[in-house]
């Protein structure tokens, strides 16, 4: 089966320190991956490189059979591939406008309908018109997840999506993983959340000394 994303010979170094040295990594459709590892080991950097937000010194990247070796080219894959920050930024507008941000090309009625669905999924309906400074950390994270989910990405890169959050947020991430898998899409989650590590039907990987191991 052709992988959704494959990486070969990825190398990222800061001066003399090699952070990432990944010979080969493949992510398949319909599969969810947990990427574990200690702080500072390069999990966020790997996700940011995949999303085209950072450059690597070397590496071949193939997405859905097409090469995207340059970071700007990978960035243009959005919203087929979406990266969600560890501490997500919620734009200074309403929750509904945040969730509909990536749908600006759609007719208003369709956009509103899809936003309503996502708000219901994220249990944010009562906060639709609330500005971001009135949201808690957990609510902001839910906005970020709904904002990404509404765009139906084929690959979702989540950076510590449950960091400092409650059980409800954790359950939402678990539900998102199931949803992505049911839609034959892929999720890669960088985490050290032990509860997430207990999830079944996910491929667990470890990033150590720049290398990804099963």
């Amino acid at each position, binding site marked *: 089966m052709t992988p959704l994303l494959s990486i070969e010979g990825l190398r990222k170094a800061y001066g003399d320190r090699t952070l990432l040295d990944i010979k080969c990594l493949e992510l398949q459709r319909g599969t969810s991956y947990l990427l574990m590892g200690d702080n500072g080991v390069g999990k966020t950097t790997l996700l940011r490189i995949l999303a085209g937000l950072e450059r690597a010194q070397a590496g071949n990247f193939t997405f859905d059979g097409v090469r995207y070796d340059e970071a700007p080219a990978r960035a243009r894959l959005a*919203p087929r591939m979406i990266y969600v920050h560890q501490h997500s930024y919620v*734009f*200074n507008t309403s929750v509904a406008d945040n969730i509909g941000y990536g749908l600006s090309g759609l007719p208003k009625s369709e956009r509103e309908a899809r936003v309503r669905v996502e708000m219901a999924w994220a249990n944010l309906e009562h906060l639709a018109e609330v500005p971001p400074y009135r949201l808690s950390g957990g609510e902001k994270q839910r906005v970020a997840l709904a904002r990404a989910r509404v*765009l139906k990405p084929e690959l979702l890169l989540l950076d510590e999506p449950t960091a400092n959050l409650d059980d409800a947020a954790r359950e939402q991430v678990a539900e998102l993983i199931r949803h992505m898998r049911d839609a034959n899409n892929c999720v890669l989650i960088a985490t050290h959340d032990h509860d997430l590590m207990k999830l079944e039907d996910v491929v667990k990987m470890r990033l150590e000394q720049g290398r990804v191991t099963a």
Partner: protein
Amino acid sequence: MYMGLTEATLQAFRWLLEGDLTIWGIVWVSLRVALLALLAVTPLAIVAGFGLATLQFPGRRALIVLMQTLLALPTVVVGLIVYLLLTRNGPMGSFELLFTQQGMVIGQALLAFPILTAMTLSAVQGIDARVSETARTLGASPLRASFTVLLEARFAVMAAIATGFGRVLSEIGCAMMVGGNIAGVTRNITTAIALETSKGEFAQGIALGVVLVALALGVNFGIAFLQGKGEIK
């Protein structure tokens, strides 16, 4: 005729309340020139400030230093430069803009440009890097992502515009040199205050001073309000 301070102040408020056409005409010239100058320069300054904040190019650092230096440029120096440009023998002499409101608009636009540019630069630099990244990763084009960043900085940019308005409204050097203080044409609040005070006619100066202070207060309340709106709570 010399008037005592109390008498002059009472006379000033009487003129203001009665809607004295000379005084309110002068206020109108000030407001019209300042608003036109801001209208002309704001889009350009926002683009320049945004470009300086987000683009990397040779000479960027020097341009930022230049812009910050221009913040402290005396208004008479700007007035002198514009005068030399607009004077009959100057490069723009054929347009006959010296001692006209259009000439004053040019001068005040030049005064406002560095303020708006530097403050927009600072506002955009203060925006979290995740804004642009989030926009891009949600599929926004580079142009839309830039617009999103600017939108996040909107309250600070509006405060920059208000500050620029305050600067051009209260300046005298450029207005005096380029406008020439012609009654009913280019006489504005600051040049009128200077003239009337030099003649010992304090009442009109006080009346115009009251209007200027009221406008400055209004602008500063506006800035405080906008900065409060933009605050992360």
